[in-house]
């Protein structure tokens, strides 16, 4: 009888440990997959930033009065796989959650909004991209140094860095995104009639991977 009880107890212990370990591993896998997808879509958005696109960071107060970092990609037409906004903006905001963590969200803001409608749009939950994020921090690389502030009207930075922590990941996460530099247009040259008759080159509309 004692042996039977020991066997039953060991079977129970092994099974419950297996289930617990499998659940933890699956949760970590899910978090990694979410993080990977978020980084991929954000990297693609920065790489496909049009030449007139702008980048700015502002710290605003959210609905509950908590500070909310908002990275704005301005004058964009099609990013994150979304259709054209007609020159509007896409905002990456870290919305606070009830459990103390934050959710990285994307908010689409059309260009022709008055201040009230703009604030309402920015206060909306938006499209959640990455939940359970702690301490998200954006920084911008220019002239060999990382800067924490990047107000509206600043030139486009060379790099954008996102640092954050996640519940299921022990070490902090850091991702650096490259922004294609804006090349000034070539000065107009005296073209021969045969050259001017040729079709003008158009930029490649296909997005970068």
């Amino acid at each position: 009888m004692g042996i039977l009880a020991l066997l039953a107890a060991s079977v129970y212990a092994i099974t419950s440990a297996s289930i617990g370990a499998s659940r933890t591993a699956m949760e970590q896998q899910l978090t990694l997959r979410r993080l990977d997808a978020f980084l991929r879509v954000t990297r693609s958005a920065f790489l496909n930033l049009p030449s007139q696109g702008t980048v700015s960071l502002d710290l605003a107060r959210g609905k509950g009065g908590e500070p909310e970092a908002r990275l704005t990609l301005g004058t964009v037409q099609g990013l994150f796989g979304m259709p054209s906004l007609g020159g509007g903006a896409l905002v990456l905001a870290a919305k606070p959650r009830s459990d103390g963590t934050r959710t990285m969200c994307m908010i689409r803001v059309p260009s022709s909004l008055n201040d009230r409608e703009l604030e309402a749009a920015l206060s909306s939950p938006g499209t959640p991209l990455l939940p359970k994020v702690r301490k998200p921090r954006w920084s911008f690389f220019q002239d060999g140094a990382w800067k924490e502030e990047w107000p509206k009207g600043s030139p486009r930075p060379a790099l954008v860095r996102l640092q954050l922590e996640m519940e299921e990941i022990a070490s902090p996460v850091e991702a650096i995104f490259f922004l294609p530099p804006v090349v000034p247009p070539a000065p107009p040259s005296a073209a021969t009639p045969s050259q001017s008759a040729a079709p003008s080159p158009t930029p490649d509309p296909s997005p970068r991977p």
Partner: protein
Amino acid sequence: MMRSKQLRCAGFTLFEVLIALAVFMLAVTGLALALDTALRAALEVRERSFCRAELESRLAYCQANPPQPGTPRILEAAQNHGVRVEETLAPYSAKNRSGVDVVGLQKLTIIATLGSQSDRAEILLNLP
């Protein structure tokens, strides 16, 4: 006499108990091995995923701020959230269609290592 014979038939012999224990131990060992393999695979996926993400980040960084040619830039794991990164920039010679050497071509190599996983990227940069 009859009663003692009946009792002897109702229980398990020591041999039967040992056989049952051996079968049980085999099953438990198999389960533990399967669990260990699954956890190792999850850890490997995690390390590979972090390695790849770090490689992409360093690739982006090096496009804006490449290392000095011939001098490797090394980020130790302790200072770089667990991932060791080695970046090298070396001159690369290639000719264009006219057979002329392309000026300013450099090969950037980045190696990211985390635990047992290592990932490597090589791209050509034009730095005139």
